[in-house]
């Protein structure tokens, strides 16, 4: 049995059933196939290449062809499905016993088996069942196109823009509201027979819109949204949900659904199944039934909506389907059909579609759902661009979008992140070029046997758009990857959603939104810790608590994994800390280790291999060691370190801040001197002097140099290979130049374009302020000294007034005056002088001393030169001569 013939046949059937105004549904498969002609003469069997062709099929024998021809000639209009030729003929070797047709489409073959649809069965029931089911399949025919496409497009666009509530509002009074449905579903305990049987005449089939008391066999029941009544003459469509009151109902039910077949129909139900079905209907169609009953009911709703195209019942039906979907969403098959019906139904019922929300519901759909395609198509048609939610909904609903665990586990976060990323990448929204393809969807009925095509000429089909999909999907995957850490964490600790731990794992730019709240709380605490300072101090234990971590019980030092977590969280909180093992060696990590916390975007990451930073860090350590050498740390020492380290050129602000924090931290907890000094060995020579300077400055910061500090400096010099003696000079100079300008960095020759040779005048620079200061000081000292050295330069006149007339040289006693007089008369040899002195009872040296002392007082200088020849210098001699009147 070929598919082509079936399709062609279905098409014909539809045309016949709905008349000429129907739009012929012609699938791709039917085009170009030879159309079978009902009026083909019996002898139309052609012989072609040794085979016999009939109705487009070839047979190996003419008998087969004729048999086929004969069977094709049976009237199609009968409700009974046409007997199809068997796919495989009985083998020609079998004895040819004529087959007797027992029922329509079932014949009894010579070997006592029953043949139906080309298959052979051992008993009649089997064959009958098969034939019936085949007939359903074969009758898969298309319902007319659901709407004039133009009309739909116009209307949808109209009410999409008007936003004036539901377009089906007027019908709501007539239909059971969804509340009523809900109420009825609660009535499942109501005994079926208790309902007042309102006798209704068994009429031909009709649609029951409102709750109506009905009686089937001995069961009186009340139901609505069903087809009820005797089947009309065989319908073109299978009417599987029609409740035919003439059919028997079993005495007991089949709540387990054991008697249900795959495509249930009321007529085909076991009588026990019918009872259960009717009871279920009466009970208000609660949940928990075997899905076959639900489908049976669903077929009716579907038929009413698709085949009867009842706009009036649309809202009620959709409401009911949604209710059922809630109850039976565990069944994926039902879910799929129900959704499809909802999508198509909402078009028919002219329901305004709810705003698009990204959802995971369409993950396993086979095609892009209508509920996505229509609104998106309309937006494209209107020339509008898609916003983040629409784009995400689109991508998520694409059948070939496969999500990773992170995306499904953290779907809410994914949506938020997507919005962020999408808006970053498409600030204007996503503009999509309208595809040529218009929206055209085939609705394949769940009941089987028919389908309907929905085509909206005014709506471009977004399913035909492929260009942006790859990019969007990549973006989605990137978002998913970004959420991976969070997802893994949630996988381990599902209850931790919304905690600080989770928040820190979110991508940084999501934290500005409400999801960052725990983080902001933690930040508040940390900021409070900082106070108004740039750097706050807290112990490691306290910090752990602040970021929502706990100290592992029984551990003396913090395990590396926890250190990493701590670092990660502080990074997320935009806080940096020191000592941080990521940016340099760390000595201790116990609960009492005091951390320096400071605000820095993303934890203030720096490149620890940056030579300048590394040097500055060692510098800090050394300076801290120097400052702690006397076991007392004062604020000035810290300030000095900062002053020295932070002016290092080439440091970024982040590095500076980190160094400051580092300095504070290591002042509390100094590194092992040996370790720090060992690291010095790796430093380039240029940095060494700088280090020494920083250390000296740190030592001087408190204004005192203690022996321990000197010792440290000596050790430092030794470690750096610098002469020890340099220490004292440095200390000495620092002592007085504390207020002098500080050399912040040694001048280093730079490679590059040579500067023009400078004039030698600039070889030294004179500090004019200092020069002025020195000049003032010099004149001060000059006058100070002048008072000492010249104060006794008294004029001779003064001496005269004081003279008492004792001798010629006023102030000298007689002996010395006499001696001086002798000297003034003529210079003397030493021996002669001694003699004269002795004669005057004077000791020669003492006499000279006395005379000179007198001379000093008088003339401000010695008046006798004590040499081999003792004499009075000429300029004094004249004065003395005058005085002595010699």
């Amino acid at each position: 049995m070929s598919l082509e013939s079936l399709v062609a046949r279905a098409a014909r059937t539809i045309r016949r059933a709905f008349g000429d105004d129907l739009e012929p549904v012609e699938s791709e498969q039917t085009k170009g196939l030879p159309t079978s002609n009902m009026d083909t003469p019996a002898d139309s069997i052609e012989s072609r290449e040794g085979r016999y062709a009939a109705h487009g099929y070839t047979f190996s024998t003419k008998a087969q062809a004729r048999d086929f021809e004969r069977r094709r000639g049976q009237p199609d209009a009968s409700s009974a499905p046409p007997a199809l030729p068997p796919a495989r003929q009985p083998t020609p070797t079998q004895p040819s016993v004529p087959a007797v047709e027992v029922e329509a489409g079932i014949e009894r073959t010579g070997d006592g088996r029953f043949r139906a649809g080309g298959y052979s069965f051992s008993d009649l029931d089997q064959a009958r069942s098969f034939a019936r089911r085949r007939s359903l399949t074969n009758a898969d025919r298309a319902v007319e196109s659901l709407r004039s496409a133009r009309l739909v497009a116009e209307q949808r666009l109209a009410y999409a823009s008007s936003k004036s509530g539901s377009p089906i509002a007027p019908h709501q009074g007539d239909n059971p509201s969804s509340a009523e449905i809900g109420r009825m579903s609660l009535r499942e305990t109501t005994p079926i027979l208790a309902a007042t049987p309102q006798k209704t005449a068994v009429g031909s089939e009709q649609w029951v819109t409102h709750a109506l008391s009905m009686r089937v066999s001995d069961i009186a029941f009340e139901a609505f949204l069903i087809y009820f009544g005797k089947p009309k003459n065989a319908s073109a469509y299978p009417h599987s949900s029609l409740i035919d009151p003439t059919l028997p109902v079993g005495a007991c039910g089949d709540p387990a659904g054991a008697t249900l077949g795959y495509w249930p129909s009321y007529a085909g139900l076991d009588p026990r199944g019918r009872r259960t079905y009717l009871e279920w209907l009466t009970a208000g169609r609660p949940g928990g039934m075997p899905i076959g009953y639900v489908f049976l009911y669903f077929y009716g709703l579907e038929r009413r909506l698709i085949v009867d195209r009842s706009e009036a019942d649309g809202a009620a039906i959709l409401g009911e389907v949604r209710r059922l979907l809630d109850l039976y969403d565990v069944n994926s098959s039902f879910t799929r059909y129900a959704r499809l019906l909802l999508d198509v139904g909402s078009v028919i019922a002219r329901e305004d579609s709810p705003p698009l929300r990204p959802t995971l519901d369409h993950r396993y759909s086979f095609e892009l759902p209508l509920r996505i395609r229509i609104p998106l198509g309309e937006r494209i048609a209107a020339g509008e661009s898609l916003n983040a939610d629409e784009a995400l909904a689109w991508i998520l609903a694409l059948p070939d979008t496969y999500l990773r665990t992170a995306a499904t586990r953290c779907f809410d976060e994914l949506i938020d992140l997507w919005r962020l990323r999408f808006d970053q990448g498409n600030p204007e929204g996503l503009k999509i070029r309208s595809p040529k393809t218009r929206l055209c969807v085939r609705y394949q009925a769940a009941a089987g046997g028919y389908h309907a095509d929905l085509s909206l000429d005014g709506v471009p089909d977004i399913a035909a758009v492929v260009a942006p999909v790859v990019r969007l999907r990549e973006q989605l995957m990137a978002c998913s990857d970004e959420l991976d850490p969070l997802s893994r964490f949630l996988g381990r600790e599902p209850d931790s959603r919304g905690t600080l731990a989770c928040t820190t794992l979110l991508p940084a730019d999501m934290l500005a939104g409400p999801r960052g709240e725990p983080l902001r709380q933690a930040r508040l605490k940390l900021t409070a810790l900082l106070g108004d300072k740039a750097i706050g101090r807290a112990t490691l234990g306290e910090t752990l608590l602040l970021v929502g971590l706990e100290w592992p019980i029984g551990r003396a030092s913090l395990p590396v994994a926890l250190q990493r977590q701590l670092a990660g969280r502080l990074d997320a909180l935009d806080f940096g800390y020191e000592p941080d093992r990521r940016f340099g060696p760390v000595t201790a990590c116990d609960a009492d280790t005091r951390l320096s916390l400071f605000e820095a975007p993303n934890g203030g990451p720096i490149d620890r291999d940056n030579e300048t930073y590394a040097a500055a860090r060692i510098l800090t350590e050394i300076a801290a060691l120097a400052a702690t050498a006397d076991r007392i740390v004062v604020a000035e020492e810290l300030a000095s370190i900062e002053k020295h380290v932070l002016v290092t050129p080439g440091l970024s602000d982040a590095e500076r801040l980190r160094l400051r924090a580092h300095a504070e931290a290591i002042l509390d907890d100094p590194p092992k001197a040996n370790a720090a000094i060992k690291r010095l060995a790796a430093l380039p020579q240029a940095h060494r002097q700088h280090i020494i300077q920083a250390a000296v400055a740190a030592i001087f910061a408190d204004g005192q140099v203690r022996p321990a500090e000197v010792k440290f400096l000596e050790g430092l010099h030794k470690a750096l290979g610098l002469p020890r003696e340099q220490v004292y000079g440095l200390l000495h100079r620092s002592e007085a130049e504390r207020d002098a300008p500080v050399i912040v960095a040694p001048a280093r020759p730079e490679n590059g374009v040579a500067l023009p040779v400078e004039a030698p005048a600039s070889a030294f620079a004179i500090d004019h302020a200092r020069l002025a200061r020195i000049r003032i000081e010099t004149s001060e000292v000059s006058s100070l000294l002048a008072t000492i050295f010249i104060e006794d330069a008294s004029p001779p006149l003064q001496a005269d007034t004081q003279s008492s007339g004792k001798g010629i040289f006023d102030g000298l006693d007689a002996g010395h005056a006499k001696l001086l007089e002798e000297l003034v008369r003529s210079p003397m040899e030493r021996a002669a002088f001694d003699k004269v002195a002795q004669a005057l009872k004077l000791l020669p040296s003492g006499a000279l001393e006395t005379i000179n002392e007198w001379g000093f007082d008088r003339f401000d200088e010695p008046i006798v030169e004590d040499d081999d020849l003792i004499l009075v210098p000429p300029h004094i001699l004249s004065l003395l001569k005058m005085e002595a009147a010699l």
Partner: protein
Amino acid sequence: MTSAAPIRARDRDTILQALAAGVVPRLGLQHIQVGRAGEIAALIRDVDRIADGGSAARFIIGEYGAGKTFFLNLVRLIALERKCVTMHADLAPDRRIHASGGQARGLYAEAVRNMATRTKSEGGALASIIERFITECVRQGEANGRPVASVIDDRLADLHDHLGGHDFAAVLKAYWRGSDDGDETVKAAALRWLRAEYPTKTEARQALGVRSIIDDADVYDSLKLLAAFVRIAGYAGLVIVLDEMVNLYKLQSAQARNQNYEQILRILNDVLQGNVLGVGFVFGGTPDFLMDSRRGLYSYQALQSRLVENSFAANGLIDLSGPIVRLQSLSPEDLLVLLGNIRSVFALGDVACHLVPDEALSAFMNHCNSRIGEAYFRTPRNTIKAFVQFLAVLEQNAGVDWRTLIGAVEVANDDIANTDEDSDDDELATIQL
């Protein structure tokens, strides 16, 4: 440069001669001293206190070339001007404050040899002081009709309180006897004893009849004795200047070093507690002598606590009342002022007579810089010497343009003087905080 007083031609020559010879001028220092007003004022107060019968001790700490010697000389001259007697000696391997092998005696002898008064400022004033004292005693004796010996005894009665005071008086009496008898041998022996040049007691007894000599252990006591004596002899006080203290720091034996430091501690204690009258000690040394944690003064805990700087004098505040006075090396600015002062000395303080204009000073410094290098201003001795010569040439050869001459000036590097310092001093000079 403005000078408080005009410069006398005599002073000018003395100053210039000394500077040209590379030594500190004997007088006129007020004309060339640059800066350091605070330090000098502090030392002047010290000297005044000593002259008033008080006591003082100072450590002048400065690097090589910082002008320690100049400063010490200045202090000495101030002291002389204040009618004090000064003694000065440089410490050396064979001259220490405390020793057992005669080194302390050597230091004492050196200091006594350098004993100076205002009239004999270049030293050798011991005999003058003694004779002046004895002359007075003789006169007193004549006036009162008493034997000179008993007058001497009376005057020196105070000295008997001091250790060795009795022998000291005996030696002075011997000196008088010698001069009275014209016995030069006795006089010489007495001076020899006072100069601590008798190696054994036997010799001293034979020559002077005293039972003791001034030995290594008695140096400090003898200094105190001398201080008391010069006050009796009519001087204001005694200022003892000990330079090159770094030689103590260089002592290899920890024991020897500590014994010396103990002596310093004793001196400090006496001075700070006021146990001694009219005596002052000024020590000159380098920073390592002070600060070396193993061998410096600070290694001696008791000294460290006494010497440690005033902790309130940080951040630019200055306290010069402590025993440590730090001298900073000269800066280019200091040197510029100094050159200006020298120029002024040449011109006898008359601005109109300046031999060279201001730019010549800068040019000269540039020249030195190019010849010696950056450290030229830290060890100014040769720079100054060259500048004095430079000006002298200009003065004597009117019409020579300073610009042409400046290139010809030879400035010697101060390497020779450097040898007794640590060899890395020049490296040091390049570091500045």
